[in-house]
Each structure stands twice: as structure tokens, then as C-alpha cells.
């Protein structure tokens, strides 16, 4: 058989392999069960978003870094975070409402329209059982109805692609940045954070990361290798919430913003030298950050990378191990 014949015949044969409604129903039921089980086990809800942490930049002084690096790492470069250093700002324009050309992305990312702005699902997660303490003033109820083919006219106040859900402010966070959906069903709490990370100008890491309230608030941390993340293995490893982490966070606040570009993303995502860290804060929110081996950090899908001072980044990266 020649290659062309094989390809045609193979496609024809494989085309017969199809899922069916019974399988769909079983999986739907399983996913629903799994979701509720996750709630009972207090597993965090993973959410995508964009956040920034507001904190002061002054903590990352070289002396602190030397202190946390300790004598065991004498060759490590000293972090030279320059508090207040100015960079060319990255302007993230107000979210362009989806059209048919970018509909796939719109479908993948959950969103809520509030006060004329688009809030997308946050990269900060929150266990439903911890959500009540964070629930603030009720802001309204979403109407649903947005889908990948919606035009701009359908992006009315509290329209969403998450169905009907009550929307609340989040205690401790500015509603201009973060809101949450919150519902109780049969005693189980379902909550999800949504952030507005568009229509902002980012002059340093603080302008985004600062909004996450990381500095001084991390109570525990974990990290994961790219291989684990990439294969969904969730092999989380402990990460000490100590001075080393605090120093890294300070360096992140002072980091230089770099706008995303197709070329940059192709380069970064074409490699595997990535590590993912998960920071749990005092308010029980869990922030996920992706570290790229060449010294960049990204929060969620916000179209900006943060270039951290080389020594600070490398020391922290190395401390995570392989």
C-alpha cells in the first residue's frame, strides 16, 4: 500500500470512531460528581486571571538578598532591585470585545461585564469554603448569554458567559480590579474570582502584582515542575514562605514590564524551562505565577511579562530545584 492510500483509508476507518451520547452523559455526570467532590475535599478552584500585587518596592535591598542567600551561595549574584526604577510602561488597552475572529479565546475564558468593563476569570484561585469571608457587597446578578459569536451589542452590564450568578465585591480588593461570583447549592459554596486587567498601564510589577496583595501576606507556598504541570500530574513540592520568597516577591514588584508579542510567546512557550509557583495568602486566595527560565514571570493571561533582576531571579529559580 502506498502512503496516500493508507492515509485515505486510515482516515476513513478512524472517522468511524466517535463518541456517543451515552459517553457524553457519563462523562458529564462524572465531571459534575468530580466537581462536587473537589468542593468537599476543599480543593481549590483553579481560575485564570490577571492580577497584580500592590506592595512596596523597597524591601528588595541587596542586603536582604545577601541575607537570605546565605553563605552557602556566595557566588550568587546579589539582587540589585532598584526601588522606584522607571521603565517604559506597558499599556494594556481596554479589552476589545470579541468578534468572530477571536471567538475561540472568548469561549475559553470566562468573563463578566461589570460597570462597562470586562472582568475575566482570575489566575487566583479560591476554595469555595473560604469564599464567604471574602464576600463583600452584592453587586448584581449576571444574565449570561455571551458566547463566542456574541457581538459587541450583547456585552451589556452584567452580561457574562457563566450563566446566571450572583456577583459580589471581594473584601480587601478594589472592585475596579476584582469581583467574585458566589453561590450556595445544597450547602456547598461555589465561588470564582474575576479580575479586570485591561485598560491599565503597567510601569513596574507593582502595578499588577501589587493588586494581588502578595507582599507580606504569603502564608504557604508550593511549586511544580513544567513536566508535572504539563502532564497534569499536580506533583506539587513544598516551597518555604521565607525571606527568600519575600525577596523574590519584592523583586517582582520592582520588575520591568515587557509586553507580550507573538515572537516572545513563541520563544517562551516553545521551551520547557518553566516552573510554576502557587502562593497561598492570608485571605486563603491562591496565586499562581509562571516563571520562565530566562528570567521572566507571568501572571495568568495578562499580556505582560515581568523581567526580574537577573540575580534575584536566578537565585530563586535555583532554589526551587529541578
Amino acid at each position, binding site marked *: 500500500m502506498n502512503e496516500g492510500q493508507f492515509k485515505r483509508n486510515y*482516515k476513513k476507518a478512524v472517522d468511524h*470512531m466517535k463518541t456517543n451520547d451515552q459517553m457524553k452523559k457519563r462523562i458529564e455526570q462524572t465531571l459534575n460528581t468530580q466537581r462536587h467532590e473537589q468542593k468537599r475535599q476543599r480543593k481549590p478552584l483553579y481560575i485564570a486571571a490577571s492580577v497584580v500585587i500592590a506592595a512596596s518596592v523597597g524591601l528588595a535591598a541587596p542586603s536582604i538578598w545577601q541575607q537570605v542567600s546565605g553563605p552557602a551561595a556566595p557566588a550568587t549574584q546579589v539582587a540589585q532591585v532598584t526601588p522606584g526604577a522607571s521603565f517604559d510602561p506597558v499599556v494594556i488597552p481596554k479589552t476589545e470585545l470579541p468578534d468572530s475572529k477571536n471567538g475561540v479565546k472568548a469561549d475559553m475564558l*470566562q468573563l463578566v461585564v461589570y460597570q462597562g468593563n470586562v472582568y475575566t476569570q482570575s*489566575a487566583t484561585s479560591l476554595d469555595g469554603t473560604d469564599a464567604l469571608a471574602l464576600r463583600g457587597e452584592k453587586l448584581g446578578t449576571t444574565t*449570561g448569554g455571551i458566547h463566542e459569536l456574541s457581538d459587541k451589542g450583547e456585552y451589556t452590564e452584567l452580561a457574562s458567559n457563566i450563566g446566571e450568578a450572583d456577583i459580589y465585591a471581594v473584601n480587601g480588593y478594589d472592585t475596579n480590579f476584582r469581583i467574585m461570583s458566589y*453561590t450556595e447549592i445544597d450547602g456547598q459554596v461555589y465561588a470564582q474570582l474575576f479580575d479586570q486587567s485591561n485598560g491599565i498601564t503597567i510601569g513596574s510589577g507593582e502595578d499588577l502584582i501589587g493588586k494581588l496583595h502578595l507582599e507580606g501576606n504569603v502564608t504557604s507556598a508550593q511549586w511544580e515542575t513544567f513536566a508535572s504541570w504539563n*502532564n497534569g500530574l499536580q506533583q506539587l513540592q513544598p516551597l518555604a514562605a521565607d525571606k527568600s520568597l519575600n525577596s523574590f516577591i519584592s523583586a517582582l514588584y520592582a520588575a520591568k514590564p515587557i509586553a507580550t508579542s507573538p515572537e516572545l510567546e513563541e520563544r517562551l512557550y516553545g521551551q520547557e524551562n518553566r516552573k510554576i509557583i502557587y502562593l497561598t495568602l492570608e485571605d486563603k486566595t491562591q496565586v499562581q505565577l509562571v516563571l520562565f527560565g530566562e528570567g521572566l514571570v507571568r501572571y495568568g*493571561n495578562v499580556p505582560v511579562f515581568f523581567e526580574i533582576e537577573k540575580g534575584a531571579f536566578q537565585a530563586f529559580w535555583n532554589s526551587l530545584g529541578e
Partner: protein
Amino acid sequence: MQRSMPQRGDHMMKVYETYADTLFRIAMVHLGRREDAEEATQDTFIKLMEKAPIFNDAEHQKAWLIRVITNHCKSLLGRGWRKREVKLEGADPLTTDDPEDQALIELVLSLPVKYRSVVHLYYYEDYLIREIGEILQISESAVKMRLKRGRQLLKLELEGEEPQ
């Protein structure tokens, strides 16, 4: 009380509708039995729900799902899952009553497992060698090697130039 999370399930089912057949076919090519392929497909969607990775775009998401289910199938087979190999004789038809189609699928299933995914992604999903390398996280030369060996085992006569 309105529900705030069910939409998460709704979203998952949209993803399911988009990729279920693709993943199911990959699992079938690896595992050879419908119920096993369904289970692997289900496990993959559970991983997606639990992990909720952030994707750059739909292709990124598709590649992630293919990688996860491929690794999952290999892992199952590598562990001697259910202490069996794919025994086709006497089994229910994998795909169709058409004996020619059945024979072709059985031929692919007779390949060593590491060749199956490459052959399937190349000849069915029409991915380029470079893309297969990215999806499976192996080098392009490894993809070419597996494709070449797969063709030999399938006794395929190449048409034209070696695809790049």
C-alpha cells in the same frame, strides 16, 4: 438560588464537544477497546478540570489535551493495565463492520505503542512533524525516526519526498 459554578461544568462540556472525538480516537488507537478509550478520555477531562491550565489559544489547549491523553494511555499500557494486551480476535469491532477498515485499524494497533501516536497524529490529524514534536515533547528527529519505523512496519511505500 442561582448557581455560580455550574457554568464551569457547562464550559467543560463545550470543551468536551470540541475535543472529545479527537481524544477518543487517540485513546482508541492506543488502547483498542471502546470502554478503555472512554475511560481514558474521561480521565483526561477530569485532569483538565482539576488542573484548569491557562491556554494561549485553542491550539495550545488541543495540544495539551493530546499530550495528556497520549501519556495517560502509554502509562496505562506501560503498567500492564488490566494485565492484557490488545487482543483483537474475537473482540467487538473497534470501529465499523467494514472488514477493510477493521483490518487497517488492527494493523495500526499492532504497532509498538510509541509509534502509534506519531502515525495517528501525522496521518489522521495532519500535524506537521515539528508540531508533533511540540505536542509530544520529543525532538523532530525522534518524530521522524518513529514515523519512518512506523511506515516500515506498516509496509508503506512513500510518495514523493520525505515530509518535513
